[in-house]
C-alpha cells in the first residue's frame, strides 16, 4: 500500500512553531510540516471525519497562529491597499473585513488575504504562512515605492508584523455560545465579516466573525503572553481541538481556495472565480497592480476558470486530469476529497472556458480510468454565517 495525497508539504528546513506547539503536543496532536511550521494534523485517535463532523454539528478549535498578522497604517493606507489589491478599502466600514487578493504585475495572485479596516488609517491584514517571505518582500518593495513616488506626498504608509501574536479559530454552530460565556461583549452585535476588540477572560483580544469552514465562528487574535491560557479556556464543553486534516475537508466543502493548490501566481482572480472581490467601479477604472490583465480578462473572458466538480466512483485528488467527453484535455483538479458531509466526491479545479458551465458533464482521470464528473456550484455544503440579529442565513 502506498499513500498519495494530503495537502502537507514536507520541508527540510527547521520547522517553526506557533505559541501553541507545546499545548498541541500535550493534547496528543500528530504534528506535521505545513507552510514551514510544525502544525497539528489531528489529535489523539480522533479521525478526520469525526473531527470534521464535530465542527459541522458542534464546535471545533483550530490553531491558525502560523498565519501572518500585520497592521498596515498611514494616512494613505486605503489608497495603498487599493493599489496592491483590486478590492475596495476606502469605503469599507470600520471593523469590516474583506477577502481580497494581492496581485503581481501580470494579474497573478501572490496571495489571498483578509483585510479588516479598523479606522480610516489602520488596516489589520491576515495573509498565508506559506507565502510569508513572498508577501513581506512584496509589501516592503511596494511600500517603499509608494512612499517614494505615488502616495508619499500625502502621508507615508508603514507595516507592522505582529510577531508571535496568537490566532485561533473557533468554528461551528455552538461557537457563539462557548465564546459568549467568556466575554461581556454581546456577540449578537457581531455579524459575519465584522470584527471587534473585546476582553476574553479580562484580556483584550481581536475577534473577527468568520473563518475557513463555512460555519459560523470566530477568529481570535491573542497577545503572545496570553495565547496558551486563552486557548486552554476556550477548550471547554463541546469544544474539540481540530487539526489540518479536517480544516482541509471543511474549507473544500465550503468552496474556499487553498493557496498553493487552488491559487498561484499564474492564476488571476478572474480565472479563480474571485471577480466578486473586485467592486464594480474598479472593474472599469482599474488603477491597481495587475489591472491590465484583469480588465482584459473581464472584457474578453479568461481562458480557464475555477469550477466545482462532483466526481463519480473514485475521489479525484490534486493533479487529476480533466478531459471532455470527446477525450480532449481541458483542465486539472487542484483539490479533491470524498466529502464527509455529503458522501460524494467533491473537487475543485480549472477547466478551459467554454467547458465551465454548471451542470456540464466532463471526465476526470483517476488511476488511468476516466470517471464521470458534473460541474457543480460551490459551496458544496451551504455556508451558515451569522448575518446579524434576526437575519436568516440564506
Amino acid at each position: 500500500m502506498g499513500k498519495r495525497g494530503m495537502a502537507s508539504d514536507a520541508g527540510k528546513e527547521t520547522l517553526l512553531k506557533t505559541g501553541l506547539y507545546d499545548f498541541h503536543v500535550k493534547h496528543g496532536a500528530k504534528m506535521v510540516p505545513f507552510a514551514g511550521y510544525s502544525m497539528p494534523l489531528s489529535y489523539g485517535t480522533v479521525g478526520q471525519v469525526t473531527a470534521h463532523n464535530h465542527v459541522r454539528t458542534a464546535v471545533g478549535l483550530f490553531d491558525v497562529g502560523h498565519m501572518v498578522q500585520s497592521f498596515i497604517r498611514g494616512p494613505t493606507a486605503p489608497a495603498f491597499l487599493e493599489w496592491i489589491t483590486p478590492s475596495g478599502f476606502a469605503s469599507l466600514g470600520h471593523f469590516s473585513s474583506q477577502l481580497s487578493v494581492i496581485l503581481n504585475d501580470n494579474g497573478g495572485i501572490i496571495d489571498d488575504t483578509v483585510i479588516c479596516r479598523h479606522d480610516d488609517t489602520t488596516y489589520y491584514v491576515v495573509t498565508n504562512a506559506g507565502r510569508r517571505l513572498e508577501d513581506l518582500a512584496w509589501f516592503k518593495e511596494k511600500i517603499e515605492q509608494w512612499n517614494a513616488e505615488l502616495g508619499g506626498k500625502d502621508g507615508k504608509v508603514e507595516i507592522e508584523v505582529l510577531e508571535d501574536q496568537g490566532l485561533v479559530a473557533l468554528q461551528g454552530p455552538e461557537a457563539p455560545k462557548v465564546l459568549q460565556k467568556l466575554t461581556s461583549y454581546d456577540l449578537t452585535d457581531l455579524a459575519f465579516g465584522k470584527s471587534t476588540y473585546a476582553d476574553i477572560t479580562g484580556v483584550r483580544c481581536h475577534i473577527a466573525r468568520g473563518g475557513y469552514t463555512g460555519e459560523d465562528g470566530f477568529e481570535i487574535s491573542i497577545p503572545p503572553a496570553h495565547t496558551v491560557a486563552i486557548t486552554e479556556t476556550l477548550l471547554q464543553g463541546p469544544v474539540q481541538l481540530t487539526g489540518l486534516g479536517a480544516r482541509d475537508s471543511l474549507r473544500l466543502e465550503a468552496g474556499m481556495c487553498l493557496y498553493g493548490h487552488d491559487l498561484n501566481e499564474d492564476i488571476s482572480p478572474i480565472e479563480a472565480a474571485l471577480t466578486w472581490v473586485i467592486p464594480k467601479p474598479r472593474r472599469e477604472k482599474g488603477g491597481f497592480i495587475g489591472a491590465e490583465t484583469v480588465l482584459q480578462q473581464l472584457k474578453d473572458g479568461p481562458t480557464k476558470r475555477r469550477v466545482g466538480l462532483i466526481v463519480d466512483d473514485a475521489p479525484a485528488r490534486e493533479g487529476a486530469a480533466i478531459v471532455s467527453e470527446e477525450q480532449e484535455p481541458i483542465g486539472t483538479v487542484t483539490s479533491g476529497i470524498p466529502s464527509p458531509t455529503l458522501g460524494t466526491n467533491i473537487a475543485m479545479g480549472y477547466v478551459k472556458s467554454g467547458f465551465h458551465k454548471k451542470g456540464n458533464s466532463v471526465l476526470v482521470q483517476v488511476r488511468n480510468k476516466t470517471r464521470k464528473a458534473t460541474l457543480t456550484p460551490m459551496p458544496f455544503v451551504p455556508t451558515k454565517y451569522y448575518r446579524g440579529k434576526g437575519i436568516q442565513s440564506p
Partner: protein
Amino acid sequence: MGRLRLLGTETRRTLIPTAGYGSSTRPASLPKRYTTAHEWILYDSDTSIGTTGITDYAQSSLGDVVFVELPTPGTEVAAGEPLGAVESVKAASDIYAPVSGVVHEVNEQLSDEPGLLNKSPEMLGWLCRIKLSNPAEVETLLTEEAYKAHCEADEH
C-alpha cells in the same frame, strides 16, 4: 496511530473462506504472510489461490475508507505492481499485489460497503483472490512476527 492489533490466527482461519473450497477442513499450516507495504495474503497450497487484503495497521492509518478500487477478475498481476486502490478522506493509497498470478475473484461487497475495510480488514474486508503463478513467492513475504516488527519500526 494505534498499535498493531492482529487477531489470533485461529479466528482468522475459520472466518476467511478460501474460494469456497470448504475452509473449515483446511490443515492448520496455512501461512498468512505480509508485505512491507501492509498487504496480507493467506495462501492455500491445495488450490494455489491466495486471499489478499490490507492489514489492520494499514486501515487504522488510512482512516475511514470511502472507496475501494478492485481489479477485474482475469487480470494478470505481478508481485509489487498496483492491484487496486483504497481511498479515505485523508488520502488515496495504492494496493500492490503481494504475489504474481491471475485475479481469480474480487470481494464485490466492498463496492457497496467500503467501510468493511475498517471494520474487518483481515477477514470480511478481503480484497481479492489471486491464482498464484509462482507459489514460492509466498515464502519470500514477511511472517506475522516480522511484519509486527516492521510496523513497530514504522512508528518510530
